[in-house]
């Protein structure tokens, strides 16, 4: 049974931790490995290595730094299928979803290699008589990232390549539930020959997080996870004087107007709510039927959801995999119970879904509640599972107010054939990532990723151009030579 290791200063090292957690295959419910809960001392070793590597790495020409990532891209392409399969095994999503995720990871590597453009500064002569001014981007030091379970390949790479290619050094903590994917990726980092200490990985749980947050030599933290944790991380980093970008949870509303083309929209709508078993921050969670589309939408949506094939993501033809863990499954089932108790009508029940031959797997099938009121828990709180609340709105105004009232502001979508409605939605919706006739409004590597309100704590979002701001300081030099 694999016990994953730390990668510190260019070496694979066994953790000295006495405590460890189990890694599960969500599809079969079998234990497939162990993850050590590394100690603060191990985090300190990783940070020291990163700090020691910083001086030389920052003076390595940016193009040379980018070349490491070009090499890495080749290796990631070579091992594409292997990474995707490991991801399915420990996370549970379907193989095609995993492939999509690995592709998104690689796109961030590709985009980061544009560093020689991203990092250029600017200048102005004669800001005053005989005085010139330049603004130059400089790397800052050691950065850390704390990643969630739901995208074990992609999310760490929203941050790592940008931080490192800008000349910083890095410490990653993968989710303790899915540490094997990054272990495979780090084997490729090792094969690339990055200088020792530039990229480090420490496995573990809460102690590792806190050690990173309080470490005086980590200059900034990137985090993706639940909103309560994101807020905590934002607060601690603020106290510690660190840069921080903390991406939290979501409760995304998908509006469907009476003029929507349901034939064209239904596949992406279904993917929005049930893709990755609803375990993503861009998943639709509340389906808002605007005006008189309600009856037809309900009928067609439920029929399409019922037809989804649930099972082991490694098998051909499976459209939805299990949830991440037994514990999370119980949490999602509890939400379904609460929905019933609070008076919503359960019109598609995924509680006893049969997932061909895997009785121990952590499955919950597509679940739809009708007559969910916006104030019910199922319509307000992040469930992170395949549970949909169907809510009615009399008109677009009412739909937009529902989005506005939500404490989250990650994503929102609308299905419509009206340009005027689409424009109104785009203009007013209080969420940061919007889809128009798109169910999963996922920005690619070259657009910023992150929400607003309770979905994001920080100022600078993830991905490309924005991240270069996060990972560099703009140094201004004012000169007079007479």
């Amino acid at each position, binding site marked *: 049974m694999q016990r994953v290791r730390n990668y510190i200063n*260019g*070496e694979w090292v066994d953790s000295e931790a006495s405590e460890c957690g189990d890694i599960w295959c969500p599809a079969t419910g079998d234990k497939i490995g162990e993850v050590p809960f590394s100690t603060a001392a191990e985090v300190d070793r990783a940070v020291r290595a990163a700090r020691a590597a910083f001086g*030389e790495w920052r003076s*390595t020409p940016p193009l*040379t730094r980018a*070349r490491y990532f070009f090499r890495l891209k080749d290796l990631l392409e070579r091992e594409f299928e292997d990474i995707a399969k490991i991801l399915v095994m420990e996370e549970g999503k379907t193989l095609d979803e995993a492939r999509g995720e690995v592709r998104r990871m690689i796109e961030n590597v590709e985009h980061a290699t544009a560093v020689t453009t991203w990092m250029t500064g600017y200048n102005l002569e004669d800001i005053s008589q005989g005085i010139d001014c330049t603004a130059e981007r400089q790397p800052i030091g050691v950065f850390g990232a704390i990643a969630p379970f739901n995208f074990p390949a992609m999310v760490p790479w929203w941050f790592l390549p940008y931080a490192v290619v800008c000349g910083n050094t890095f410490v990653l903590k993968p989710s303790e539930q899915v540490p094997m994917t990054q272990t495979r990726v780090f084997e490729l980092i090792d094969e690339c*020959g990055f200088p020792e200490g530039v990229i480090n990985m420490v496995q573990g749980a809460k102690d590792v997080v806190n050690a990173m947050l309080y470490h005086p030599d980590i200059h900034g933290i990137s985090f993706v996870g639940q909103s309560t944790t994101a807020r905590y991380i934002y607060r601690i980093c603020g106290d510690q004087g660190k840069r921080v970008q903390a991406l939290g949870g979501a409760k995304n509303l998908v509006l469907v107007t009476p003029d929507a083309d349901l034939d064209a929209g239904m596949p992406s709508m279904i993917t929005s709510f049930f893709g990755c078993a609803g375990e993503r921050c861009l998943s639709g969670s509340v389906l808002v039927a605007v005006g008189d589309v309600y009856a037809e939408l309900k009928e067609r949506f439920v029929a399409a959801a019922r037809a989804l094939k649930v099972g082991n993501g490694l098998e051909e033809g499976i459209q939805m995999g299990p949830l991440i863990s037994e514990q999370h499954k119980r949490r999602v089932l509890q939400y379904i119970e609460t929905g019933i108790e609070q008076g919503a009508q359960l019109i598609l029940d995924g509680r006893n879904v049969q997932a061909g031959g895997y009785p121990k797997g952590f499955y919950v099938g597509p679940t739809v509640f009708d007559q969910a009121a916006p104030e019910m828990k199922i319509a307000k709180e992040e469930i992170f599972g395949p549970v949909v609340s169907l809510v009615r709105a009399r008109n677009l105004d009412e739909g937009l107010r529902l989005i506005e009232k939500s404490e989250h502001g990650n994503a929102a979508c609308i299905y419509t054939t009206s340009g005027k409605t689409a424009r109104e939605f785009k203009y007013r919706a209080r969420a940061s990532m919007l889809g128009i006739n798109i169910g999963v409004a996922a920005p690619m590597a070259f657009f910023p990723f992150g929400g607003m309100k309770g979905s994001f704590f920080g100022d600078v979002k993830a991905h490309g151009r924005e991240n270069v701001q996060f990972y560099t300081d703009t140094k201004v030099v004012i000169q007079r030579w007479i």
Partner: protein
Amino acid sequence: MAFAAEVVKQSQGFYQDSVPQFTDPRAKEFAVTLLRDGRKHLAWLEQARRENVTEMILEPIAGLERDRYQITVDGSELVDEAKRLTCFLLLEEREERFFRDASSKIPLPEVSKLFRKIAGKKESNLKWLRSLEWI
């Protein structure tokens, strides 16, 4: 750069011949690891050569003479595992010495860093080899 690759390749040849000869599983595993690392190092060297070719000069590097790093080992005639591992030690020592010396003399920072990195890996291998009682 050519000599660096030559040095690694010579070690690789010996390790390759040695893998089927070992009965001790630890020694066999170690030889396999060295082979895998050697392939990686050759790839890094080739990469460094390509990426830094515009900065390279054709004059010999002062103070770095091939003769100091020439050794001969013949795997085919040696059957004793301890002797074979002693040859491993010699080859790894030679690589460590070469890459360490060259890293301080070579004027290209990226190549110098790479040589230092490989020397560091060799140092770890030497530690392991020297810890074996039967050498």
